[in-house]
């Protein structure tokens, strides 16, 4: 066990970055290794799961995350963008959004609509808006959304820019599956919300 303790000390300490003012629901699951930093508020609604090694950065604007979202490892939400002007808010994720490993969402009025899936390593530019009513878009792995780009509902973006519309009509099922997945993760991910609250 001593070796694991040692290794722990090599990790970047959460205390190095300023803690963000947070507004967390009591049913949120955040792994201890996640980092919530910045000086604007970070709101996270109920039953959202945040995996280890995430960075939620509100130094460029408010970050709001809806209900039942899943944020996987190494995601950066609220990354600085090349355009330094501040938006009204930073990033808004609506309900049932899944953000997969190592995706980056830039800050500055970026809205990710309900039921969207952001694939592995995708990059969402500043001010992008997914969906007219912001719903159920799928961004596949390693895709890039340019700043300010708007996608209609049910768009599937794949193969580096090709688009089609998802006509499967499985949104209800997807939401149900997401709820189940969250049920399991709540049991697996050790969480201590009070650590982030001070």
């Amino acid at each position: 066990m001593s070796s694991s303790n040692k290794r722990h000390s090599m990790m970047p300490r959460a205390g190095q970055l300023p803690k963000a003012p947070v507004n967390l629901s009591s049913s949120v699951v955040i792994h201890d290794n996640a980092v919530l930093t910045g000086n604007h508020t970070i709101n996270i609604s109920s039953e959202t799961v945040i995996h280890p090694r995430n960075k939620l950065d509100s130094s460029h604007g408010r970050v709001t995350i809806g209900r039942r979202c899943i944020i996987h490892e190494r995601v950066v939400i609220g990354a600085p963008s090349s355009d330094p002007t501040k938006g009204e808010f930073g990033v808004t994720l609506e309900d049932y959004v899944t953000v997969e490993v190592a995706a980056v969402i830039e800050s500055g009025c970026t809205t990710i609509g309900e039921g969207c899936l952001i694939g592995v390593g995708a990059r969402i530019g500043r001010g992008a808006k997914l969906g007219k009513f912001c719903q159920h878009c799928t961004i596949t792995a390693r895709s890039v959304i340019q700043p300010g780009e708007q996608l209609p509902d049910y768009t599937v973006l794949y193969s580096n820019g090709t688009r089609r519309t998802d006509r499967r009509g499985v949104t209800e099922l997807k939401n149900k599956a997401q709820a189940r997945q969250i049920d399991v993760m709540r049991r697996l991910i050790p969480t201590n919300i009070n650590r982030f609250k001070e």
Partner: protein
Amino acid sequence: MSSRKQVKGEYIETDTGNKVSRKANLIGTQHIMLGGKTVIMADAMGSSGAAPQSNTSIFIGRYCFLSRGCCLRPPGRIYKGAFTYMPLRIGDHVFVGENSVVQAATVGSHVHIAANAVVGEFAIVKDYVRILEGTVVPANMVIPSFSVVAGQPGRVIGEVPEGGHEQFEMREMYKTVGNNVPPPAAPAAQAV
């Protein structure tokens, strides 16, 4: 890559010859099994949200090499009405490049996954496969042996040439990493 000046004991070396960087992020270590002689570099990440009933969720064979910033995670899906993580099995002599993400069900032996690649959930990669840089292997894809895969989404674009399979050998690479290895530049200087 890493600086030549090694910090004292940058790697933890186990009896079975695994070299795990102290800066690697292994989450759920009790569910990760290393076969021996595997190198895990700094910032590599193994994350196993193993279901409590299954003991191991990431199996890694011998002579595997996980570069900086890569991420291995077991795939998950709804199975019999409940969300379950399935094990991720990796064979021997597998190289995973920098910032690659592997969520496959099975990766065979002698597989080379280059930098920035993504191997989707439940993909099955057979033996002697080369996945080129920036490839996105879609979920559930089965890649046959001796293929070269590239593109976004990944397609088989060629075959590993005859005799090309020797390049997949990882023993030499294993020797270049560790706490007290001769600087890699030395043998090259002798050759010149």
